């Protein structure tokens, strides 16, 4: 079954890439290689520079792939494996890939402007501000959600925690070899990979067991330190090692999944509204996009696509491979995650807890067992299932080491995101507070101080994470991300209608309306049904989360109004 799903996934993606992607490129975007891309028309040798398409694909994929396409599908298994898989495939093909591709091409046709700028061009300056608010909320909630998930993993798996800090030491050593001693690139890479392997082994030997709250303090100190260090000391070598973790993880996953020949033990479908969020019956629609974000669609991708990727696209026909292809690859990553848990999740529950959610009660029990201290949350369940799957195919690799490898893979991506959000946060806060300059110079100076601007998302995010309720924070993060996606998709739709003057805009108009309606309903459901219970248990963090969620809803409705007025005029 596992092999069949992986092969089916690959075939569906390859087939639709050529058929559906080709249709979008030729009939809707109307790609034309005689039209110069910004990489040529604005060539400056620095930002605008044509890149080889395979290289740009790899860079784009590494920029969009993080921990979310792994964590989301694990939580969504409460609905059974089929609904999650269908959402990954259909959402990916008919919403996510279109979103990424159109954001990229809109940017290419608009001289490399960001999606935020294009939205401002269509809907006025206020829209740009709204996008920035969404990005700020997204940054705070990313720190909260990823911090909580990593904290839970480190608390339940002391070997993973120590391995991670050994990998940080490995990255520091690689930084010295590469950038100080200027060692030959391939040799330094080999040493870096060997150090990475050594870190996993040392982590297994010297576990560090600490409480959840202590991990929160350490994570906060780590975020601040990592983002304050020069990039060549830690961020760059660690990102480089992460790229190897990503490739190794995906290759091993595909090989392991194809070779394990295992059956799915998780039920295909449980019920429409199993218990997923805070002991609440959670309906599949509209909540699913808040749970499975990046594997299916993600607003953050529109920023990446309209950032460096659009400025380095050599020719318009390459856009499909970069925008559409990268999203499909990320969908394949989420497919692998679903395959792992569906095949071995039940077995892991039985081994760790002596009990497992029976197929009949899977929907009711899965979520609470996932949160059990012996399991340790979505990252731990994924890493244990992943290790079991690979060791079936490749029995000569230690299952324990594979488990630590998988947990490090996800934790590294989550932690990388945490410390880089500080830089984005600094930029967004400085920009958002520019209007304050004339009203209150003192306050403006205070907020735009580089330390204070960097620390605002980190402090709020870790404070939210300290509540330990990742199941409440995760959908809020999903909502911020998907609302951003909704803006980008609507902008893309209007751009197509305006720029191409074609009649087939329904292909993106319908997904954009569907996405907006779904995410708006999901956020409303979250505010009405989940937040009150959370506020009762955690007053301060509950109020912060409520303020952010309600603000997102208000901005969303204001935006919709301006979208409606603008499209009516058009």
């Amino acid at each position: 079954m596992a092999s069949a799903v992986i092969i089916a996934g690959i075939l569906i993606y390859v087939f639709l890439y050529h058929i559906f992607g080709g249709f979008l490129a030729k009939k809707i975007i109307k790609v034309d290689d005689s039209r110069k891309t910004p990489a040529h028309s604005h060539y400056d040798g620095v930002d605008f520079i044509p890149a080889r398409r395979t290289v740009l694909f790899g860079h784009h994929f590494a920029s969009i792939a993080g921990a979310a396409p792994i964590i989301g599908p694990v939580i969504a298994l409460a609905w059974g494996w089929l609904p999650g898989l269908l959402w990954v495939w259909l959402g990916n093909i008919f919403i996510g890939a279109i979103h990424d591709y159109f954001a990229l091409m809109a940017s290419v046709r608009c001289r490399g402007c960001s999606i935020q700028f294009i939205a401002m061009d269509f809907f006025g300056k206020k829209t740009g501000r709204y996008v920035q608010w969404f990005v700020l909320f997204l940054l705070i909630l990313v720190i909260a959600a990823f911090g909580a998930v990593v904290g839970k993993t480190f608390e339940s798996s002391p070997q993973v925690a120590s391995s991670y800090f050994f990998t940080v030491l490995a990255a520091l050593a690689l930084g010295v070899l590469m950038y100080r001693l200027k060692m030959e690139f391939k040799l330094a890479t080999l040493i870096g990979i060997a150090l990475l392997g050594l870190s996993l082994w040392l982590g297994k030997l010297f576990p560090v067991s600490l409480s959840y709250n202590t991990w929160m303090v350490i994570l906060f100190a780590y975020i601040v330190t990592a983002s304050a260090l020069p990039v060549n000391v830690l961020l760059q070598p660690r990102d480089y090692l992460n790229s190897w973790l990503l490739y190794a993880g995906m290759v091993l996953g595909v090989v392991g999944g194809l070779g394990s020949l295992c059956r799915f033990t998780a039920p295909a479908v449980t019920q429409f509204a199993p218990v997923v969020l805070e002991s609440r019956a959670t309906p599949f629609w509209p909540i699913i996009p808040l749970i499975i974000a990046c594997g299916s669609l993600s607003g953050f991708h529109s920023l990446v696509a309209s950032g460096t990727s659009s400025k380095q696209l050599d020719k318009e026909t390459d856009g499909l491979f970069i925008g559409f292809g990268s999203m499909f690859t990320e969908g394949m990553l989420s497919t692998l995650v679903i395959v792992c848990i569906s095949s071995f999740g039940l077995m892991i529950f039985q081994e760790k807890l002596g009990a497992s959610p029976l197929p009949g009660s899977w929907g009711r029990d899965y979520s609470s067992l996932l949160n059990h201290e012996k399991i340790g949350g979505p990252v731990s369940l994924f890493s244990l299932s992943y290790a079991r799957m690979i060791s079936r195919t490749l029995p000569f690799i230690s299952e324990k080491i594979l488990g630590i490898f998988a947990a490090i893979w996800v934790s590294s991506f989550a932690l990388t995101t945490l410390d880089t959000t500080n830089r984005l946060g600094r930029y967004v806060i400085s920009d958002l507070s520019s209007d304050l300059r004339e009203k209150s110079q003192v306050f403006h100076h205070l907020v735009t101080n580089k330390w204070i601007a960097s620390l605002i998302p980190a402090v709020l995010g870790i404070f939210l994470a300290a509540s330990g309720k990742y199941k409440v924070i995760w959908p809020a993060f999903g909502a911020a991300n998907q609302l951003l996606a909704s803006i980008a998709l609507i902008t893309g739709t209007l751009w197509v209608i305006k720029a191409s003057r074609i009649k087939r805009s329904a292909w993106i108009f319908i997904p954009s309306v569907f996405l907006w309606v779904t995410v708006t309903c999901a956020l409303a459901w979250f505010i009405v049904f989940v937040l009150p219970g959370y506020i009762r248990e955690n007053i301060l963090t509950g109020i912060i989360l409520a303020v952010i969620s309600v603000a997102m809803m208000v901005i969303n409705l204001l935006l919709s109004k301006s979208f409606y007025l603008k499209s009516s005029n058009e």
Partner: protein
Amino acid sequence: MIDPKKIKSQLCRALTAFWELQKREATDLIEYELHELENLFALLVYSPFIGLPLPPSSVAYELLPYMESELKALLVRSTRASDMLSDIASVFDGL
């Protein structure tokens, strides 16, 4: 018919592209910081233009021929100064 030479050349091309990608993965953040520093350096050297006489004008004029590419990049960037969010988002890692 499978042509081993063709397969070999395609493998070589794939490996070359892979190493090129990895080199980029190993340097993109440093490159980003470098461009920021170059912008800063250009601003410092030509600070008299914005009313801050940091280096003597003669030094600035002497450096002018060597600063051509930095100044061009700085000018292009200055036109996009309010649109850097996506650039920063794509340089640093994703979600």
